[in-house]
Protein backbone atom coordinates (compact mmCIF):
# COMPACT_ATOMS: atom_id res chain seq x y z
CA UNK A 1 0.00 0.00 0.00
CA UNK A 2 1.78 3.14 -1.15
CA UNK A 3 1.54 6.66 0.21
CA UNK A 4 -0.84 8.11 -2.40
CA UNK A 5 -3.33 5.30 -1.78
CA UNK A 6 -3.30 6.01 1.95
CA UNK A 7 -3.78 9.75 1.31
CA UNK A 8 -6.64 8.91 -1.05
CA UNK A 9 -8.45 6.77 1.50
CA UNK A 10 -8.01 9.35 4.27
CA UNK A 11 -9.35 12.16 2.06
CA UNK A 12 -12.18 9.97 0.73
CA UNK A 13 -13.18 9.07 4.29
CA UNK A 14 -13.18 12.76 5.26
CA UNK A 15 -15.30 13.64 2.20
CA UNK A 16 -17.86 10.90 2.88
CA UNK A 17 -17.94 11.79 6.57
CA UNK A 18 -18.66 15.41 5.66
CA UNK A 19 -21.42 14.42 3.25
CA UNK A 20 -23.09 12.15 5.82
CA UNK A 21 -22.74 14.88 8.42
CA UNK A 22 -24.48 17.30 6.02
CA UNK A 23 -27.47 14.95 6.00
CA UNK A 24 -27.55 14.28 9.73
CA UNK A 25 -27.09 17.82 11.06
CA UNK A 26 -30.29 19.66 11.92
CA UNK A 27 -28.94 23.21 11.95
CA UNK A 28 -28.28 24.62 8.43
CA UNK A 29 -25.08 26.30 9.63
CA UNK A 30 -23.69 22.92 10.70
CA UNK A 31 -24.61 21.48 7.32
CA UNK A 32 -22.77 24.36 5.65
CA UNK A 33 -19.64 23.69 7.72
CA UNK A 34 -19.87 19.98 6.81
CA UNK A 35 -20.04 20.93 3.14
CA UNK A 36 -16.88 23.03 3.55
CA UNK A 37 -15.15 19.91 4.95
CA UNK A 38 -16.22 17.97 1.83
CA UNK A 39 -14.91 20.72 -0.45
CA UNK A 40 -11.52 20.94 1.26
CA UNK A 41 -11.18 17.14 1.10
CA UNK A 42 -12.03 17.25 -2.62
CA UNK A 43 -9.40 19.96 -3.13
CA UNK A 44 -6.88 17.59 -1.56
CA UNK A 45 -8.01 14.85 -3.96
CA UNK A 46 -7.55 17.21 -6.92
CA UNK A 47 -3.99 17.87 -5.74
CA UNK A 48 -3.45 14.12 -5.49
CA UNK A 49 -4.74 13.77 -9.05
CA UNK A 50 -2.31 16.44 -10.21
CA UNK A 51 -4.86 19.18 -10.94
CA UNK A 52 -3.21 21.95 -8.92
CA UNK A 53 -5.07 24.87 -10.49
CA UNK A 54 -8.46 23.23 -10.03
CA UNK A 55 -7.55 22.51 -6.40
CA UNK A 56 -6.73 26.17 -5.80
CA UNK A 57 -9.93 27.31 -7.53
CA UNK A 58 -11.91 24.78 -5.50
CA UNK A 59 -10.61 26.26 -2.24
CA UNK A 60 -10.91 29.91 -3.30
CA UNK A 61 -14.22 29.89 -5.20
CA UNK A 62 -16.10 26.99 -3.59
CA UNK A 63 -14.69 26.93 -0.07
CA UNK A 64 -14.31 30.70 -0.03
CA UNK A 65 -16.83 32.61 -2.11
CA UNK A 66 -19.80 30.27 -2.52
CA UNK A 67 -19.81 28.91 1.02
CA UNK A 68 -19.39 32.41 2.48
CA UNK A 69 -22.48 33.35 0.45
CA UNK A 70 -24.34 30.38 1.95
CA UNK A 71 -23.26 31.15 5.52
CA UNK A 72 -24.13 34.81 4.96
CA UNK A 73 -27.67 33.95 3.84
CA UNK A 74 -28.11 31.49 6.73
CA UNK A 75 -27.17 34.19 9.21
CA UNK A 76 -29.18 36.86 7.37
CA UNK A 77 -32.35 34.76 7.53
CA UNK A 78 -31.51 33.54 11.04
CA UNK A 79 -32.15 29.97 9.92
CA UNK A 80 -32.67 27.80 12.98
CA UNK A 81 -33.15 24.11 13.43
CA UNK A 82 -35.17 22.62 10.61
CA UNK A 83 -38.63 21.43 11.50
CA UNK A 84 -39.56 17.84 11.01
CA UNK A 85 -42.46 17.16 8.72
CA UNK A 86 -44.04 13.84 7.98
CA UNK A 87 -42.59 11.84 5.16
CA UNK A 88 -44.71 9.56 3.11
CA UNK A 89 -43.92 5.92 3.87
CA UNK A 90 -42.93 5.48 0.24
CA UNK A 91 -40.20 8.12 0.57
CA UNK A 92 -38.77 6.55 3.72
CA UNK A 93 -38.76 2.93 2.66
CA UNK A 94 -38.31 3.40 -1.06
CA UNK A 95 -36.10 6.48 -1.11
CA UNK A 96 -32.92 5.32 0.63
CA UNK A 97 -32.63 1.95 -1.16
CA UNK A 98 -33.32 3.64 -4.50
CA UNK A 99 -30.69 6.33 -3.86
CA UNK A 100 -28.15 3.67 -2.86
CA UNK A 101 -29.08 1.63 -5.93
CA UNK A 102 -28.54 4.68 -8.13
CA UNK A 103 -25.13 5.34 -6.55
CA UNK A 104 -24.21 1.68 -7.11
CA UNK A 105 -25.43 1.82 -10.70
CA UNK A 106 -23.43 4.97 -11.47
CA UNK A 107 -20.34 3.51 -9.79
CA UNK A 108 -20.70 0.23 -11.70
CA UNK A 109 -21.25 1.99 -15.02
CA UNK A 110 -18.29 4.33 -14.51
CA UNK A 111 -16.05 1.51 -13.32
CA UNK A 112 -16.94 -0.77 -16.20
CA UNK A 113 -16.49 2.01 -18.75
CA UNK A 114 -12.91 2.62 -17.56
CA UNK A 115 -12.05 -0.76 -19.06
CA UNK A 116 -11.90 1.02 -22.41
CA UNK A 117 -9.60 3.77 -21.15
CA UNK A 118 -6.02 3.65 -22.42
CA UNK A 119 -4.54 4.31 -18.97
CA UNK A 120 -6.02 2.78 -15.83
CA UNK A 121 -4.17 5.00 -13.34
CA UNK A 122 -3.99 8.79 -13.23
CA UNK A 123 -0.68 10.22 -14.35
CA UNK A 124 -0.09 12.04 -11.12
CA UNK A 125 2.12 14.68 -12.67
CA UNK A 126 0.74 18.18 -12.37
CA UNK A 127 -1.21 19.76 -15.20
CA UNK A 128 0.51 23.10 -15.54
CA UNK A 129 -1.57 26.23 -15.25
CA UNK A 130 -0.03 27.31 -18.57
CA UNK A 131 -1.49 24.30 -20.40
CA UNK A 132 -4.86 24.94 -18.81
CA UNK A 133 -4.91 28.64 -19.65
CA UNK A 134 -3.81 28.02 -23.26
CA UNK A 135 -6.75 25.64 -23.60
CA UNK A 136 -9.15 28.00 -21.84
CA UNK A 137 -8.26 31.10 -23.84
CA UNK A 138 -7.76 29.42 -27.24
CA UNK A 139 -10.00 26.39 -27.70
CA UNK A 140 -12.64 27.42 -25.17
CA UNK A 141 -12.50 31.18 -25.73
CA UNK A 142 -16.13 31.43 -26.87
CA UNK A 143 -17.62 29.50 -23.90
CA UNK A 144 -15.34 31.51 -21.62
CA UNK A 145 -16.79 34.77 -22.92
CA UNK A 146 -20.29 33.32 -22.55
CA UNK A 147 -19.65 32.58 -18.86
CA UNK A 148 -18.88 36.25 -18.25
CA UNK A 149 -22.25 37.05 -19.78
CA UNK A 150 -23.86 34.39 -17.59
CA UNK A 151 -22.35 35.95 -14.46
CA UNK A 152 -23.61 39.38 -15.53
CA UNK A 153 -27.13 37.97 -15.91
CA UNK A 154 -26.81 36.23 -12.52
CA UNK A 155 -25.77 39.48 -10.82
CA UNK A 156 -28.73 41.33 -12.37
CA UNK A 157 -31.08 38.48 -11.44
CA UNK A 158 -29.87 38.39 -7.84
CA UNK A 159 -30.28 42.17 -7.48
CA UNK A 160 -33.78 42.13 -8.98
CA UNK A 161 -34.85 39.18 -6.84
CA UNK A 162 -33.45 40.37 -3.54
CA UNK A 163 -34.44 44.03 -3.68
CA UNK A 164 -37.32 45.17 -1.54
CA UNK A 165 -40.43 46.08 -3.51
CA UNK A 166 -41.87 49.52 -2.95
Amino acid at each position, binding site marked *: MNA*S*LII*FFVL*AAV*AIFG*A*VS*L*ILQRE*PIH*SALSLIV*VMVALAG*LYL*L*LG*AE*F*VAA*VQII*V*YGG*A*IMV*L*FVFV*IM*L*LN*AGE*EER*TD*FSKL*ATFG*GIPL*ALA*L*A*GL*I*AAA*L*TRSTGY*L*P*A*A*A*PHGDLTSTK*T*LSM*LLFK*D*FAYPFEL*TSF*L*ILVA*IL*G*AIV*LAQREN
Partner: protein
Amino acid sequence: MVPTNYYLILSAILFGLGIVAFVFKRNIITLFMAIELMLNAVNLAFVAFSQSLGKPDGEVFVLFVIVVAAAEAAVGLGIIILTARNRRSLNIERVDLMKL
Protein backbone atom coordinates in the same frame (compact mmCIF):
# COMPACT_ATOMS: atom_id res chain seq x y z
CA MET B 1 -0.85 5.46 -7.98
CA VAL B 2 -4.52 5.41 -7.18
CA PRO B 3 -6.67 3.61 -9.79
CA THR B 4 -9.16 5.85 -11.60
CA ASN B 5 -11.95 3.51 -10.54
CA TYR B 6 -11.54 4.52 -6.89
CA TYR B 7 -12.14 8.16 -7.75
CA LEU B 8 -15.18 7.27 -9.82
CA ILE B 9 -16.67 5.16 -7.04
CA LEU B 10 -16.09 7.98 -4.54
CA SER B 11 -17.73 10.36 -7.00
CA ALA B 12 -20.77 8.09 -7.29
CA ILE B 13 -21.01 7.76 -3.48
CA LEU B 14 -20.90 11.53 -3.02
CA PHE B 15 -23.52 11.99 -5.75
CA GLY B 16 -25.78 9.43 -4.05
CA LEU B 17 -25.36 11.17 -0.70
CA GLY B 18 -26.24 14.44 -2.42
CA ILE B 19 -29.46 12.89 -3.71
CA VAL B 20 -30.31 11.54 -0.24
CA ALA B 21 -29.71 14.99 1.26
CA PHE B 22 -31.83 16.61 -1.44
CA VAL B 23 -34.74 14.26 -0.82
CA PHE B 24 -34.62 14.15 2.97
CA LYS B 25 -33.72 17.66 4.06
CA ARG B 26 -36.52 20.14 4.65
CA ASN B 27 -34.61 23.41 4.70
CA ILE B 28 -34.36 25.25 1.36
CA ILE B 29 -30.77 26.36 2.03
CA THR B 30 -29.73 22.80 2.83
CA LEU B 31 -31.36 21.61 -0.40
CA PHE B 32 -29.13 24.07 -2.23
CA MET B 33 -26.11 22.68 -0.43
CA ALA B 34 -27.12 19.19 -1.58
CA ILE B 35 -27.08 20.43 -5.18
CA GLU B 36 -23.59 21.87 -4.63
CA LEU B 37 -22.51 18.49 -3.24
CA MET B 38 -23.75 16.73 -6.39
CA LEU B 39 -21.93 19.25 -8.61
CA ASN B 40 -18.75 18.60 -6.63
CA ALA B 41 -19.15 14.85 -7.12
CA VAL B 42 -19.41 15.35 -10.87
CA ASN B 43 -16.35 17.61 -10.82
CA LEU B 44 -14.34 14.83 -9.19
CA ALA B 45 -15.29 12.44 -11.99
CA PHE B 46 -14.32 15.09 -14.56
CA VAL B 47 -10.85 15.59 -13.07
CA ALA B 48 -10.30 11.85 -12.62
CA PHE B 49 -11.16 11.15 -16.27
CA SER B 50 -9.10 14.13 -17.41
CA GLN B 51 -5.98 12.87 -15.62
CA SER B 52 -6.60 9.28 -16.64
CA LEU B 53 -6.86 10.19 -20.33
CA GLY B 54 -4.02 12.70 -20.08
CA LYS B 55 -6.15 15.47 -21.55
CA PRO B 56 -6.62 18.74 -19.63
CA ASP B 57 -10.02 19.43 -21.27
CA GLY B 58 -11.85 17.92 -18.31
CA GLU B 59 -10.24 20.39 -15.94
CA VAL B 60 -11.43 23.29 -18.11
CA PHE B 61 -14.92 21.79 -17.86
CA VAL B 62 -14.60 21.79 -14.08
CA LEU B 63 -13.77 25.49 -14.17
CA PHE B 64 -16.94 26.11 -16.19
CA VAL B 65 -18.99 24.03 -13.76
CA ILE B 66 -17.63 26.09 -10.86
CA VAL B 67 -18.54 29.35 -12.63
CA VAL B 68 -22.07 28.11 -13.34
CA ALA B 69 -22.38 26.91 -9.73
CA ALA B 70 -21.40 30.37 -8.49
CA ALA B 71 -23.99 32.02 -10.73
CA GLU B 72 -26.60 29.47 -9.66
CA ALA B 73 -25.81 30.06 -5.99
CA ALA B 74 -26.22 33.83 -6.40
CA VAL B 75 -29.60 33.57 -8.12
CA GLY B 76 -30.78 30.67 -5.94
CA LEU B 77 -29.98 32.45 -2.71
CA GLY B 78 -31.82 35.51 -4.05
CA ILE B 79 -34.86 33.30 -4.58
CA ILE B 80 -34.43 31.85 -1.08
CA ILE B 81 -34.36 35.33 0.49
CA LEU B 82 -37.50 36.24 -1.46
CA THR B 83 -39.25 33.04 -0.39
CA ALA B 84 -38.27 33.50 3.24
CA ARG B 85 -39.60 37.06 3.16
CA ASN B 86 -42.93 36.05 1.62
CA ARG B 87 -43.56 32.79 3.49
CA ARG B 88 -41.88 33.57 6.83
CA SER B 89 -40.46 30.06 6.75
CA LEU B 90 -37.53 28.17 5.25
CA ASN B 91 -39.39 24.86 5.18
CA ILE B 92 -39.71 23.54 1.64
CA GLU B 93 -43.13 22.09 2.52
CA ARG B 94 -44.48 25.61 2.98
CA VAL B 95 -43.51 26.60 -0.53
CA ASP B 96 -46.57 25.14 -2.21
CA LEU B 97 -47.88 28.07 -4.23
CA MET B 98 -47.81 26.09 -7.47
CA LYS B 99 -49.16 22.90 -5.93
CA LEU B 100 -52.55 21.80 -7.22
